[in-house]
């Protein structure tokens, strides 16, 4: 049956059809929907792990135990999972193991745009790269075959436009995959130096075989057209190249590591001008040039951001696209904002008021760095808020430390903030960490995590007790506060930053988009009472606007959280339907 599927959904379908029984992940754009979709199949055990390292280790354990398993993450998640990846390359697998990584070229929702293909090379793990949803499904199935044939984990690289584009997929049947026999094998699975040295030899042998295989694997294919121009490409770049170059010849690489030297040489010989079209780094190009084939690549195409057909058209053929009509008016930018009713808004209002230096983290709350809140100083990677604020305090001393806090979301704290907190307690830090506990992993589209008390399949489970957890690692000062109780929040933040002891403040209020937390309905501004001091505007709520002369609440988007009523001294904000609270 033909279905329109997201690339991520097709990956999930591929895993299902390949007979996978264990799937793990930590949510991260653009990879999240892979595991959300796998969770819909009853035949597959599926989990949100606390972070990508754990996720990969669980999947590897399942593989060693004999199951086909799949683990998915975004590009920066692979940094976290790099440790098990590099050694899983040595141990190899028992049941097939596929690691899916979603690169975010253009940084739609990421802190960098690293190119994951380098991980394949660095860890000696083969990597496939599909170019649409149909291939997403087929390549996942192929990846399991390669994994088992060559005793290796296999990486599958996606990118935002593959993950988040829908295209047509044919559904197939699920194959019945029987668990492989489990056999204790110290030489294969216990990586003590003596065993690991022998395994490294096996890895090198495997790579020689895979290199040979790359010349004949069907997903590396030549599509002949005019031979004046030849294009070597892969993944989403193939689609852009197809559109821009039209009827020329293509060497489309479905396997991007290891690369097929013979196939590339043969192709290069048969075409006139050779172009290499790839997004981000010159990964194919460096390899192709290493054996002396001349090709045009990154001297023409950008290494920054996403590629597109129009960029190729412009660079290769000097053709610019676009209309000639225009309306001469300045269009204000529309950056993302925290939603109306967002619980984080109260925290940022207080942090700005107290003029604190704020070590930030990864999540919706990173938006607190933008105007008008502008109350975040740093954002590096998952969990870094906790450790960075500790480093700041150690470098600049207690006086500076009293004007700093680290802020981290509940899911991010579990992911890798907890280790930083242990560091603070252990190494006698005094930092104050505010855990923005909105009871969900919000930015990636509301996934459960160990602090919510529910699994990926919405089953109730044990819930991490953040207070006890902080106590257990040595933080005695732990306070819980409602971020919409601004007076209390301000008092607590002042007390904890001033205390000569490390502390945790849990700012607890559910994400405004969670259905079970509904507000009373929109508010309005009573213009007779409004003194126009614009304190409500400093909240950065998208529902309140300065209309130039007066202030107005947009009733279509106001949810009625009432935070603005708490900053308005004039008592001018009331419920839009005229009823009192």
């Amino acid at each position, binding site marked *: 049956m033909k279905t329109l599927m997201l690339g991520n959904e097709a990956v999930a379908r591929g895993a299902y059809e390949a007979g996978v029984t264990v799937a793990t992940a930590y949510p991260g754009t653009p990879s999240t929907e892979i595991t959300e979709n796998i969770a819909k199949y009853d035949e597959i055990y599926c989990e949100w792990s606390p972070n990508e390292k754990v996720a990969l280790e669980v999947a590897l354990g399942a593989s060693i135990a004999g199951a086909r398993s799949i683990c998915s993450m975004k590009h920066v998640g692979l940094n976290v999972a790099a440790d098990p990846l590099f050694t899983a390359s040595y141990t190899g697998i028992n049941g097939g193991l596929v690691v899916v990584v979603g690169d975010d070229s253009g940084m739609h929702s990421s802190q960098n745009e690293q190119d994951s293909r380098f991980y394949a090379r660095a860890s000696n793990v083969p990597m496939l790269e599909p170019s649409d949803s149909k291939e997403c499904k087929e390549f996942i199935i192929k990846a399991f075959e390669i994994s088992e044939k060559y005793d290796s984990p296999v990486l599958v690289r996606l990118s935002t436009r593959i993950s988040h584009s829908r295209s047509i997929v044919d559904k197939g049947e699920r194959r019945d995959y029987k668990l492989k026999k489990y056999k204790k094998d110290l030489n294969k699975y216990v990586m003590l130096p003596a065993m690991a040295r022998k395994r490294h030899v096996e890895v090198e042998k495997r790579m020689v075989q895979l290199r040979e295989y790359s010349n004949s694997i069907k997903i590396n294919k030549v599509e002949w057209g005019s031979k004046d121009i030849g294009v070597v490409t892969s993944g989403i770049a193939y689609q852009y190249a197809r*559109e821009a170059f039209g009827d020329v010849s293509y060497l489309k690489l479905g396997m991007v590591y290891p690369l097929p030297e013979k196939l590339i040489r043969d192709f290069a010989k048969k075409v006139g001008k050779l172009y290499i079209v790839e997004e981000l780094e010159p990964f194919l190009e460096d390899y192709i040039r290493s054996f002396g084939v001349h090709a045009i690549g990154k001297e023409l195409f950008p290494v920054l951001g996403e590629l597109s057909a129009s960029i190729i058209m412009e660079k290769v053929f000097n053709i610019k696209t676009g209309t000639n009509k225009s309306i001469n008016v300045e269009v204000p930018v529309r950056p993302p904002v925290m939603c109306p009713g967002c619980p984080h808004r109260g925290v940022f209002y207080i942090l700005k008021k107290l003029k604190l230096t704020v070590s930030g983290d990864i999540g919706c709350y990173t938006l607190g760095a933008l105007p008008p809140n502008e109350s975040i100083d740093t954002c590096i990677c998952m969990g870094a808020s906790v450790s960075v604020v500790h480093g700041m305090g150690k470098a600049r001393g207690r006086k500076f430390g009293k004007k700093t806090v680290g802020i981290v979301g509940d899911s991010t704290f579990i992911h890798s903030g907890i280790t930083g907190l242990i560091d603070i307690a252990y190494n006698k830090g005094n930092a104050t960490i505010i855990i923005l506990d909105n009871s969900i992993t919000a930015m990636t589209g509301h996934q459960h995590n160990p602090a919510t008390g529910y699994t990926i399949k919405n089953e109730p489970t044990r819930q991490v007790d953040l207070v006890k957890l902080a106590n257990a690692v040595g933080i005695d000062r732990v306070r819980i506060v409602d971020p919409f109780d601004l007076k209390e929040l301000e008092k607590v933040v002042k007390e904890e930053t001033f205390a000569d002891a490390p502390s945790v403040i849990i700012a607890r209020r559910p994400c405004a988009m969670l259905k079970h937390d509904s507000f009373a309905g929109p508010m309005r501004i009573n213009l007779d009472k409004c003194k126009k001091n614009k304190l409500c505007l400093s909240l950065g709520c998208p529902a309140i606007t300065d209309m130039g002369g007066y202030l107005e609440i947009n009733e279509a988007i106001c949810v009625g959280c009432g935070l603005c009523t708490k900053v308005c001294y004039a008592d001018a904000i009331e419920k839009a339907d005229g009823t009192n609270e």
Partner: protein
Amino acid sequence: MELMNKFNILIVGVGGQGILLASRVIGNVALRKNYDVKVSEVHGMSQRGGSVVAYVKMGQKVCSPLVEKGEADVILAFEQLEALRWLEYLKNGGKIIINEQKINPMPVIIGKAKYPDRIINRIKKTYSNVVSANALQIARESGSIKAVNLVLLGILAKSISIEKELWLDTIKETVPQKFLEVNIKAFEAGYSIRQNEFGNKFPAGQM
């Protein structure tokens, strides 16, 4: 209707307006018509009230999932300012459908920028094929302000030569059962809006 070579729709608006659902409905309608189709969406951070764009491309064979400048046969704008922002993506002679709703971006909210005035008038002066409607009000009258996307889909459906039944069937398949009635009502309301057509139903000729 002949199989079209290529037909590109750009859907623009503000995160949270229901753009993903709209793009999925159009994509599935194209699939039912046996076209090759690609729908490209935006997830993650920009969904939080930022400027959002979705691309729907259909035809005999679709390669790149992106609609680029000068390539859109139709721009379906869920918000005035976003219509303005993406205008240069319109193909010469392409059609713009604009929801009259205004949502102020943060720079405007805090007084750092001005929301341009008379946007729709200006667009109508420069472009010939423009339809505008107060989709928010129509959605409200249909039973839910959340059905803005279905009102706009109705307007779009009217201007593309694909059978109305196909749209309705697809909507029934895509929208959750409990919101179906309101959504169908909203779609019908959008569909019945009188459009000042430029020649034939859009797109003329190419289909």
